[in-house]
């Protein structure tokens, strides 16, 4: 008889017009790490909001049993009091406060409203030790990296005497080393009796750390699998998409032409920290019809390289040459870069890519308004017609081109950003993490789009932190490490191990 800490029975949650959860059952055994997977929109977040009381008792059907006792949470505070803490993808820390202040935020160690700083610091030290973070409790959170901030969040959860910890995409913004560290911590916590629910798109992590996996699809529970022999990633993916994905990457025969785009001797310094060089003597080339990857850990300088090339959008004291078709380009502004046939699809689509309040149409045409206007007057009808063409061809799932981009799913938002840049009719596309936080089905579609662009004779530079993606998509991979290119690997020689070695090899940097 398994010992269940949590049982959710027959949960049904409806929004006007949609049934987000349909008779979902979800059982979690005590002292395990239980993964919850499914495509975007499968209902994972909704289920966790039901569990944590964000959707209070009475707004859904079904029952929640915590330690076999029925619960009726009225809000987050209520569920936290019962020992359920949820850590969201977007961290909920106050950047201007210290670690200690954040750890006890809303849960202050105080006597009659006066904070007991002594107890606060002391307990923070103890909690930080537990999560393996060696920092002074008085350190301001804004000075910490994302990985360390994640650990502070967990310490904060521990301060609330958490029994059931829910992590929503905890490693989405972390590099490999920090991710591993976090997953190790989850196993540690499990050994100390804390049960975790892990929501993640990264199946390799799920397979590495979870004891059981529950798959949701279209608001229903599909199955719960033990992580054991015979269960591999492909098996889980099959459950998530409801079909066999023989190939996670579309088949392609590359047709590679002459050199299209070259960067030579590129150097960039940090915009505010003087003498900190973030890109060092980088040279690379992209041929027509070629998909070239840039691998590297977070902070290796990949995004900085791309942004500094794209109209000097990042950094100072930039030097080096950029050539297209053998002719040197002078790209002082983003406008110059667009006019020269460059496109840069940003890493963070919400912060840097989209106008979330605007509709799909206005987002798609934003970077190429000259194409739909004459003497600065926009032809609104032509604009709509062009945008609808993209909604069709890119298979953007939306009620129409007047739908607000803020209401679309991550995959569809990414397709809007891609459409915007394809519409500028570029020759060279730089794609920065184009599939981050996107479900498996949408990823496949984005890969197809990238391949179609290459087949049209465009050059594609693909920056990605997911090694399988780089290996599956690219004809050639450059590896960056601490601002330098530490290696170049062709499609045939490329293996995860070979790339990883170059990503982490410090000797190659010292070269």
């Amino acid at each position, binding site marked *: 008889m398994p010992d269940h800490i949590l049982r959710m029975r027959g949960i049904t949650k409806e929004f006007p017009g949609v049934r987000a959860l349909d008779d979902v059952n979800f059982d979690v055994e005590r002292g395990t790490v239980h993964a919850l997977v499914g495509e975007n929109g499968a209902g994972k977040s909704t289920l966790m909001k039901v569990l944590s009381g964000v959707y209070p008792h009475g707004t859904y059907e079904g029952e929640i049993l915590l330690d076999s006792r029925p619960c009726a949470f009225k809000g987050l505070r209520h569920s936290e009091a019962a020992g359920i803490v949820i850590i969201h993808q977007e961290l909920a820390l106050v950047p201007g406060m210290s670690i200690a202040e954040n750890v006890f935020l809303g849960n202050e160690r105080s006597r009659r409203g006066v904070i007991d700083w002594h107890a606060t610091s002391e307990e923070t030290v103890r909690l930080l030790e537990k999560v393996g973070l060696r920092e002074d409790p008085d350190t301001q959170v804004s000075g910490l990296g994302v990985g360390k901030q994640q650990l502070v969040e967990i310490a904060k959860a521990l301060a609330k005497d958490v029994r059931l910890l829910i992590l929503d995409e905890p490693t989405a913004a972390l590099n490999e080393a920090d991710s591993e560290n976090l997953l190790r911590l989850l196993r540690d916590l499990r050994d100390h009796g804390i049960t975790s629910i892990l929501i993640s798109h990264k199946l390799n992590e799920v397979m590495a750390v979870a004891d059981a996996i529950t798959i949701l699809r279209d608001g229903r529970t599909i199955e719960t699998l033990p992580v054991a022999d015979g269960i591999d990633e492909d098996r889980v993916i099959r459950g998530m998409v409801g079909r066999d994905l023989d190939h996670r990457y579309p088949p392609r025969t590359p047709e590679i032409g002459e050199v299209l785009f070259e960067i030579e001797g590129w150097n960039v310094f940090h915009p505010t920290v003087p003498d900190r060089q973030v890109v060092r003597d980088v040279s690379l080339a992209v041929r027509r019809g070629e998909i070239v990857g840039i691998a590297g850990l977070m902070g290796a300088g990949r995004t900085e390289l791309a942004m500094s090339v*794209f*109209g000097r*959008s990042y950094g100072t004291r930039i030097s080096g040459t950029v050539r297209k078709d053998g002719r040197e380009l002078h790209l002082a*502004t*983003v*406008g110059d*870069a*667009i006019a020269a046939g460059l496109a*840069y699809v*940003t890493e963070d689509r919400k*912060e*840097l*890519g*989209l*106008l*979330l*309040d*605007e*509709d799909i149409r*206005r987002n798609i*045409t*934003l*970077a190429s*308004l*000259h194409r739909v*206007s004459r003497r*600065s*007057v*926009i032809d*609104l*009808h*032509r604009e*709509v*017609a*062009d945008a*609808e*063409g993209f*909604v*069709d*061809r890119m298979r953007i799932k*939306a*009620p*129409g*081109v*007047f*739908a*607000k981009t803020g*209401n679309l799913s991550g995959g569809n938002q990414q397709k809007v950003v891609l459409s*915007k840049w*394809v*519409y500028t*009719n570029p020759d060279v596309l730089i794609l920065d993490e184009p599939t981050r936080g996107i479900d498996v089905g949408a990823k496949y579609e984005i890969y197809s*789009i990238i391949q*179609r*662009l290459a087949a*049209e004779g465009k050059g594609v530079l693909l920056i990605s932190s997911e090694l399988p993606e780089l290996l599956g998509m690219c004809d050639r991979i450059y590896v960056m490490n601490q601002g330098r290119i530490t290696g170049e690997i062709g499609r045939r020689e490329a293996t995860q191990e070979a790339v990883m070695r170059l990503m982490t090899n410090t000797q190659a940097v010292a070269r």
Partner: protein
Amino acid sequence: MTLVDRPATASASSGGAAGPRLRGNLRQYGMIAALVVIVVLFEILTDGILLKPLNVTNLIMQNGYVLVLAIGMMLVIINREIDLSVGSVAAFVGALTGVAIVNWGLPWPLVVLGALITGGLIGAFQGFWVAYARIPSFIVTLGGMLLFRGLSMVVLQGQSIAPFPTGFRQLGSGFVPEVGGSDLHLVTILLGLAAAALIVWNDWRSRARRREYGLAVTPMLWFALKAVAIVVVIGAFTWVLAVYQGLPVVGLVVIVLTVGYSFVTTSTVMGRHIYAVGGNERAAALSGIATKKTKLLVFVNMGVLAALAGLMFAARLNAATPKAGTNFELDAIAAAFIGGASASGGVGSVVGAIVGGLVMGVMNNGMSLLGLGVDWQQAIKGGVLMLAVAFDVYNKNKAK
């Protein structure tokens, strides 16, 4: 077919596109409906005085300068900035105008031109600090508010300057010239007819263009109903003005500005850039938009409109006074927010600003007609502002 080809035929999704678009329009219609409700309410409460020709003319003249400011303020707020200095700038430009026309005896058309340029320069000065030096506009324009109020007093040495020549006063209290001697104001009627015809024709042409691109068009019945509604509303408005002294110059200025700025914001590259910079400045910059230049231009524009408002106010008062324009900035900001602007930028429309300004204006006028004291008027207006914005925020959250 390459990815960038334009589709030659209708796309499947165009049918579904009408839904969210209509919903977006409904919000605007909701604002107009609220205005209609307020007008009807006061029409009943004042026993029909509100819509008497004389009072409608008064309404336009009393609110013209706030509407002009509201248009500029709407653009500033869409750009995710604020301008607290417009009242003081209006006073300062009015003061300079008074000195130039009355004391120095310069020809008034020249002075008007100079005043508008001065306003633009003041806007550029403040816009520079906001856009290029990255000082928050709240601080810059708070400084501007004090600076230009002070300078107005310096220029006028604390005194009022009067009177202005007749030609200049037309800008505040004049009417569109009349031809013939009938009881009805013929030019006003003609202007009204022309406006109605222009709007309906424009709508018709837009339908044809949509069909050309293979887009879904609104049903004929809907089009016809809309056309009839437009003709009736414009006709009634024209008639009311024509039986009195015709369309005030102030009204003409406001209408021309509304149409012009609506066009700029909805149909030009510049307008699109203003929304983009306000909605997400970094994304706009990475899309090749000159964000700083856009911000600067929005402030230059605000300065010009503030100067125009100052001229209109001085002309109506027939005097330049150091106290002119007090609290205008607050009226303009309130009008923009009642009219659907968002404090987080990127959202709002010129028509919204006008509707918001009219809501405030009609309430002012209606409550005065009812004999309500200024104390209660202020309190009630404050409440309406909060309610309007709360309603808007509630609607937006519900839409999510």
